[in-house]
């Protein structure tokens, strides 16, 4: 039982929280140095095979989603919940307490023989209340910034909501990507939705740099018969049928036409990176590698002189897939300029109509608001914890008609004491250079 109590106390302690924060910080730092999401072979080629196995075994190839990182986060949440639950009754009690009539324990500063205690209250911006104590002596008291005691509690709550919102979002969010050129209608994963790219424009500046990418989109729910249209730009996603549609990236596409013995055989729009098997000879495959709108040949290979289509160049590769061995043989790789064509026996392949394709990200995360709320609460908590310094003053009228004033402000004791000294005109004893004392204590 005693051991369980000990474990319980440790799990809810600040010490445990600090240990968790340090481990999480170290894990995050490690995760930023080790490339994430590579294969064992890729790690082996980057490091040694032994290191690669270690990285994969410890989950360091996906630090932020591996089991021990999640366990640490769960422990942190548990610690925050326990900490907040344990502190709640005390905080409610302290909030309900009427002012600071009696300052318990050692006050931060005190002055005796004060003629006018009101100057203290005025200086610290506290409106005093007046009462009589058991002996019939007048007591002035008041407090300020009491909400400051809730700072850490609110901050912990915010962190909890933030982790909760992020975690739930990670588990339940739905994300799809579609890419295509103007006029294409594309299925959105397994949702039954269809995304139509009504238009896609790339706005260039005079110096050929991109000013904005704009996609006009229509999302259709064929099952429910719902349709919604909107414009998606970088930094301005479109909200369609409850999904957020982001203009994510772009690239080049071109129409690839195949003729056989002078007769039209097929035409398809390929995005860079896509390939096309020839219709009646599927062993012959043309891969559209890249597009150079303003083609130039440099020492480092093909490049583009600008972003505008002035001298279009299509980098292609031609493959023959051997049906017997299933091996692929590269027949050739070259850059095709306007008016040029690829000829393989009776087949002629041409590239034309270069245009930008767009990649649209379609996303739904029902818990983003919770994470945002958590973040805002953390911010409020920090303001309360770091900038509202709860202080209390009490003044007791002595028999000789003078007052004894006591003040308490734990969060900003040295400054509070300095201000107290200024008002009272008395230098308070400096015996508690607490920092020095504490260090000596630590060294001991």
């Amino acid at each position: 039982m005693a051991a369980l109590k000990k474990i319980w106390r440790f799990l809810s302690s600040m010490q445990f929280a600090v240990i968790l924060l340090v481990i999480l910080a170290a894990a995050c730092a490690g995760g930023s140095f080790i490339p994430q999401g590579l294969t064992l072979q890729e790690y082996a080629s980057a490091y040694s095979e032994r290191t690669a196995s270690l990285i994969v075994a410890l989950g360091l190839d996906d630090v932020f989603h591996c089991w021990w990182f999640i366990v640490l986060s769960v422990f942190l949440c548990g610690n925050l919940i326990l900490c907040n639950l344990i502190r709640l009754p005390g905080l409610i009690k302290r909030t309900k307490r009427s002012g600071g009539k009696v300052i318990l324990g050692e006050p931060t500063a005190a002055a005796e023989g004060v003629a006018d205690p009101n100057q203290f209250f005025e200086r610290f911006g506290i409106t005093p209340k007046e009462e009589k104590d058991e002996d019939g002596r007048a007591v002035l008291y008041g407090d300020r910034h009491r909400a400051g005691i809730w700072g850490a509690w609110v901050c912990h709550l915010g962190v909890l909501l933030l982790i909760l919102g992020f975690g739930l979002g990670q588990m339940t969010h739905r994300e799809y990507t579609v890419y295509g050129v103007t006029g294409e209608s594309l299925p959105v994963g397994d949702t039954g939705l269809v995304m139509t790219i009504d238009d896609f424009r790339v706005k260039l500046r005079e110096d050929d740099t991109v000013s904005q990418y704009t996609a006009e989109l229509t999302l259709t729910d064929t099952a429910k018969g719902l349709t919604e249209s909107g414009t998606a730009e970088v930094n301005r996603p479109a909200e369609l049928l409850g999904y957020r549609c982001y203009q994510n990236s772009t690239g080049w596409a071109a129409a690839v036409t195949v003729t056989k013995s002078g007769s039209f055989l097929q035409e398809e729009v390929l995005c860079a990176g896509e390939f096309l098997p020839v219709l009646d000879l599927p062993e012959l495959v043309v891969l559209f590698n890249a597009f150079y709108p303003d083609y130039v040949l440099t020492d480092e290979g093909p490049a583009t002189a600008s972003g505008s289509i002035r001298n279009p160049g299509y980098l292609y590769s031609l493959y023959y897939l051997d049906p017997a061995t299933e091996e692929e043989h590269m027949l050739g790789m070259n850059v095709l300029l306007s008016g040029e064509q690829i000829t393989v026996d009776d087949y002629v392949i041409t590239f034309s109509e270069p245009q930008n394709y767009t990649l649209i990200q379609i996303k739904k995360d029902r818990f983003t608001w919770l994470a945002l709320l958590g973040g805002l609460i953390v911010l409020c908590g920090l303001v309360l914890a770091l900038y509202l310094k709860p202080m209390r003053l009490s003044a007791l009228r002595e028999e000789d008609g003078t007052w004894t004033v006591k003040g308490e402000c734990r969060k900003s004791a040295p400054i509070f004491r300095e201000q107290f000294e200024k008002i009272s005109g008395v230098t308070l004893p400096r015996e508690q250079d607490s920092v020095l004392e504490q260090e000596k204590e630590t060294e001991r």
Partner: protein
Amino acid sequence: MTNAENVLFIAVMVIYLITMLLYFFFVIFKKTPLAKAAGGFQAAGLLIHTAALVLRGIAAGRLPMTNQYEFATCFAWGLCLVSLIFIVKFRFPVLGAFSAPVTFLIIGYAAMQSREIHELMPALQSNWLGVHVSTAVISYGSFGVSFVLSLIYLFREKAKEGGFWDTHIPAREKLDLISYRSVCLGLLFLTLTILTGAIWAERAWGSYWSWDPKETWSLVTWLIYAVYLHLRLRRNWKGKLAAIFAVAGFVCVIFTYIGVNTFLPGVHSYK
């Protein structure tokens, strides 16, 4: 870069150098007027620095906070501003002798970067950019001040009682408190930086948190300062150990700023 901005930038570098030397002379010769002169130069430098940033903003047609040079010069500006506020508020000119070299180093780092003005890529064309980077400037500036205050704290141990350092540097308890306040300001603004960055990332990339190296290191910095605040609640952690921790925290800040942009690829790398 416009000629006027270039002239102002060089003037700022020279003034920050003079400021640093004046603060050094103040602590060497122990003459208070030198501290006043240094403070005056620092304030003048800050004004001219502000003018240089405004001119660059006008020339670029946007806030000058989007590349390594612009952020470095803003970082130096933030550090200069926050340290000046702390010097005036706490009547603590010795702080200048420690913060001025750091400011000069950062502005020197800025001078080594490309100062060309480039048009912004679409993802950076957002109103969140100004809020996100401004809060980062204040945050980093505050952490910079807490770093120099912690150095002073550690240095003060060796000060002779009643000597120059003893009379011109606040008591250790107060130093610890000022450093703590500086961390508080930094942490508050770092939280704002992370929050505004997350909101912006959600609009631009569809994900408010994607473990980009800069995001991750901002979180690491946040966690380290959160640990600092928690440890200060333990009686025997105030003072020297907290000061060492604040120094380590600033090393982390510098890595978040320079190291991440230089060594770790991500949406914040300016390669």
